[in-house]
């Protein structure tokens, strides 16, 4: 008897959304590694100093590279300046968006909110709807039909992934979304995870963004140069590639429909420059398991939980030696995924022992 056909329905209103609810995968209890409450409390402590230092450095570098790009505009010397500016704008904004969205980066709440709004604009993620989308991602991480942020649905769209390095698919989609929000229209899926009380805010922010983009475009037309757009707008595209390099390591190729972040997320060791740009989100299993721990304490949390975790990847290259073949294989055999091995010292999660990984159409 042949296996049932796999249905790749990742929509939040489709068959798998219902299946996930029926099978207890929606808003479920997730495995959590043991850690003494006292130690966890220490690691959850917030301070402003780290995030203020990093934010000043970030804006300082944006200002410096931006000035040099302006100064050398018209010569080849502007190219490396705008490459650096683009990475700071289009890549580093992703992790700032993320950490400040969780409100863990700064101790002072308003500082998180200010940087969150700025970073949301830079990474082109409309701040209100994406906050709620990310909330759902944490409730139902890589649960098919529930998680709106599954970056690589099966079978992987390899051309789409290649385009993602310059957000050539998601960027225009976000602009369409902003335009729609400007007219007060949210999609049925957005209405699922954004509470009605927040809809006016979605519309308000979208209109502010539209005004900013219109202003920059008008400025570029007025001076007959793309230079203004090299500072605002285009760097979200030309500087996004490293964000995608980082981001794909989080979950791509791993199991779906499991209630254990050790099996669907990766922790990847990275160098200090990458960790500054990525704000330690390379400790992704730990982040998902304990989202209250601020980015600057994730290395210490990682040290605490190491014995209960799968082996971390020793650098981006090691992660991609697994991801690239996995995605290639998934493009031919969508049922394939990478099974993470837990060490003998690890405790069993809800999916062990005898755990059966699910296909997209058949949540556990």
């Amino acid at each position, binding site marked *: 008897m042949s296996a049932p056909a796999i249905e790749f329905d990742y929509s939040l209103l489709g068959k798998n959304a219902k299946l996930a609810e029926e099978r207890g995968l929606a*808003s479920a209890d997730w495995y959590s590694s043991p850690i003494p409450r*006292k130690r966890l*409390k220490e690691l*959850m402590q*917030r301070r402003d100093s780290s995030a203020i230092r990093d934010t000043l450095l970030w804006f300082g570098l944006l200002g410096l590279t931006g000035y040099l790009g302006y100064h050398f505009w018209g010569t080849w010397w502007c190219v490396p300046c705008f490459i650096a500016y683009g990475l700071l704008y289009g890549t580093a904004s992703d992790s700032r968006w993320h950490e400040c969205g*969780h*409100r*863990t980066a700064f*101790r002072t*709440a308003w500082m998180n*909110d200010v940087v969150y709004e700025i970073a949301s604009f830079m990474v082109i993620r409309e701040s*209100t709807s994406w*906050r*709620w989308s990310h*909330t759902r991602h*944490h*409730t139902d991480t890589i649960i098919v039909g529930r998680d709106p942020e599954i970056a690589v649905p099966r079978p992987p769209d390899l051309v789409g992934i290649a385009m993602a390095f310059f957000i050539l698919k998601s960027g225009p989609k976000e602009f369409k979304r902003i335009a729609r929000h400007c007219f007060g229209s949210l999609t049925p899926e957005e209405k699922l995870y954004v*509470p009605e*009380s*927040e809809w006016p805010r979605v519309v308000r922010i979208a209109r502010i963004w539209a005004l900013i983009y219109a202003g920059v475009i008008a400025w570029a037309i007025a001076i007959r140069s793309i230079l203004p757009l090299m500072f605002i707008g285009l760097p979200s595209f030309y500087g996004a590639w490293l964000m995608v390099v980082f981001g794909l390591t989080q979950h791509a190729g791993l199991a779906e429909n499991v209630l254990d972040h050790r099996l669907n997320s990766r922790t990847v060791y990275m160098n200090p420059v990458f960790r500054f740009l990525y704000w330690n989100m390379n400790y992704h299993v730990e982040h998902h398991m*304990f*989202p*209250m721990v601020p980015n600057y304490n994730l290395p210490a949390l990682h040290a605490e939980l190491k014995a209960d975790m799968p082996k971390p990847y020793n650098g981006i290259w090691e992660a991609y030696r697994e991801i690239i073949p996995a995605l290639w294989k998934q493009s031919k055999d969508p049922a394939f995924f990478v099974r993470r091995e837990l060490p003998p010292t690890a405790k069993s999660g809800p999916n062990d022992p005898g755990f059966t990984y699910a296909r997209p159409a058949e949540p556990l």
Partner: protein
Amino acid sequence: MSDQLNETWVDAGHVDDIEKEDVIRFDHGGRTFAIYRTADDKYYATDGLCTHEKVHLANGFVMDHIIECPKHNGRFDFTTGKAQGAPVCVNLSTYPVRTDAGRILIRLG
């Protein structure tokens, strides 16, 4: 007097059951509550589950007068129950708390 107290106030444990700037879970009558102790030794009580996704706040993080939900970092002022913004939009119910002879008493109903 003591009987009268027991009728109105429920014993929720010893004052040292909670560390300073921390929270514990207290279950009573089929309901769950969160009891807080501030850095300056004041005690407060709220409903035990986050109004967003019904996660136990006792696993959360206390910072000044704020309780942060462990799942989505939603924040409430536990002295008033007021939700501090997305992803929490609905306030928590709060309950009067007092201490008596080293016991934490919370008034329910």
